[in-house]
């Protein structure tokens, strides 16, 4: 997997280059925006890791420039700025993902792999947690090898829980996912859907109630 790393800080650039190389990436490192554009014009890359604070051209302008030229390669932005407005701006500007410094090297590598997979069109539409397999594209759920028929809301609820298993999801966030913009939602409507989902999964203990807070999926 060929990767262009644009980072002006020598020490960080070197560390990321070594870290990603050890994780089977072929890394080409440049330190300026102009060098990045020139490199992209010359060579094909599978993805680009772009620092925003560059000495010549700001990373935002490099991103705008390559999108303007119709380059569709995935761009992961590295930033020291953590304001949500800044992050939204970069994503709207054409970035595919972002990471705030300092970051975890394993996570950076994993995100880059996911971005490239998605770019190549074989990103798995399946979510798999324990014995549950959820196919988002075909809207199917298989539990312990058996297909389970879920309603749209039950499906969305299970998907939300499966995206971040082992993590507690507040009931407010789950309500947003399940009922989206509906204004008139019964106070116990979520509980009803959780109850039904548990029944259909056949293992009530898989969806754990965190009293007063929300739910989490525990299915190994």
């Amino acid at each position, binding site marked *: 997997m060929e990767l262009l790393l644009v980072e002006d*800080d020598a*020490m960080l650039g070197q560390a990321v280059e*070594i870290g990603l190389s*050890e994780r089977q990436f072929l890394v080409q490192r440049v330190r300026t925006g102009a060098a990045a554009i020139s490199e992209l014009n010359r060579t094909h890359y599978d993805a680009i890791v772009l620092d925003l604070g560059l000495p010549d051209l700001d990373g935002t302008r490099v991103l705008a420039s390559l999108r303007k030229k119709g380059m569709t390669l995935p761009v992961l932005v590295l930033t020291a700025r953590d304001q949500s407005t800044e992050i939204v701006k970069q994503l709207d500007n054409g970035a595919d993902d972002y990471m705030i410094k*300092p970051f975890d090297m394993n996570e950076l590598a994993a995100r880059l792999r996911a971005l490239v997979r998605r770019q190549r069109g074989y990103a798995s539409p399946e979510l798999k947690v324990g014995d549950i397999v959820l196919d988002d594209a075909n809207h199917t759920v298989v539990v312990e090898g058996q297909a389970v028929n879920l309603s749209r809301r039950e499906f969305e609820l299970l998907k939300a829980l499966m995206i971040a298993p082992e*993590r507690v999801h507040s009931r407010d966030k789950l309500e947003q996912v399940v009922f989206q913009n509906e204004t008139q939602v019964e106070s116990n409507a979520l509980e009803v859907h959780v109850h039904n989902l548990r029944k259909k999964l056949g293992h009530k203990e898989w969806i754990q109630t965190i*009293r007063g807070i*929300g739910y989490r999926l525990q299915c190994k």
Partner: protein
Amino acid sequence: MSHEVDELFDAEMLQQAKTLSALMAVNSELMPESTTTIASLDAHTYEDKLSYRLENSSGDVILQTEGAPDAVDFEFVPGFSEKQVGGELWYAFGLDNTAKQQRVLMLQEDDFRSELRMDLTIDTVIPIMLILPFMLWLGWWTINQNFSSFNRLAAELRHKSADDYTAFVEGNDREEVAVVKRSLNHYLNRIEQTFLREKRFSADAAHELRTPLASLKAQLQSRLGNSTSEQQDELQPLLDSTERLVKLVESLLQLSKAELPPEQLKQINVASVLRQVLADQYSTAESKGLSYDARVPTVFQQTSDESYLYLLFANALDNAIKYAVPGSHIGIEVSENQIFVCNRVAADHVIDIDRITERFYRGKQLDVEGSGLGLSIVKNLAEQLRVQINFRHIDDEFCFIVTFDTDQ
């Protein structure tokens, strides 16, 4: 006033003495041969209080009014004089016409003068006394009118919060007030700029630290992945320290953010924010063997800011998780307009409640990982959100209490 009255009467006596002396000189042949007393007409109460006496140069009385003191009691003295005669004070003016060998003595009793003095005083003072309250009120009102702009400015200044640097509006103020306002606005602007520079510095410094930290962390992670177990034993503490440094920088950034007011306060469901914080930190609490006892209603509407409030609860809960006795419960309760986050602490937990929100204050719990900035961040956020925060440490229970202003 009595002095002026006396001056007036003295002048009058002098004039009368001169007139009588002139008349005596012109009509000396008409003067009586022996002492003549002009009888009282009893026409006026003051008649006897004004007298005169005409004498020759040897002191023999030629003519005198009834009631005038005898020459024995009040001898002729040239010029002004006064004397007590029979319990009454008399004023006199004597004029000696040596050429004609005649003397004139004009006499006035003090009663006459003092009554007039009193009348004049009353006539002068009473109108003043009557008009004085009005004059005082008028003076007070005029001063107030003139100083009302200053008073308004003083009130505005008194009610201005310590972090409010908005300029005073220059309306239809008097020139002198406008000058003061302009100077104050200039001063406020300078303070704000200094304050913002300081805040920007800490935020910029924290941002700048992120890149070298990222480099350090990335290098340590790389080394750790390709090292022997002995090397790993040496590298892991370095990576842990780097993680601590990362957290400290994040805390400094949060502290810097919490010193700026949120864009806009609006009605939000505080219960929802609280639940999200509890959900996000559940696994951290769980890893320490802690559990929640959450009593949070579905809806708890308050005027606030979601991201600031999230940060406030996240830091408060992080504090509770850090200091809670492993295996205990963390109680979270919403009651009326208050939110309680309570946890059990070790019996030897020593903390000074008054210093708890000081930066880098950690009490005596130095073994617990943390920077000592969490509750300083909470305090700043509470000020920005206009909520009250309190801490309670009784026996082995420590509580953090947020009180929302119900009048908002």
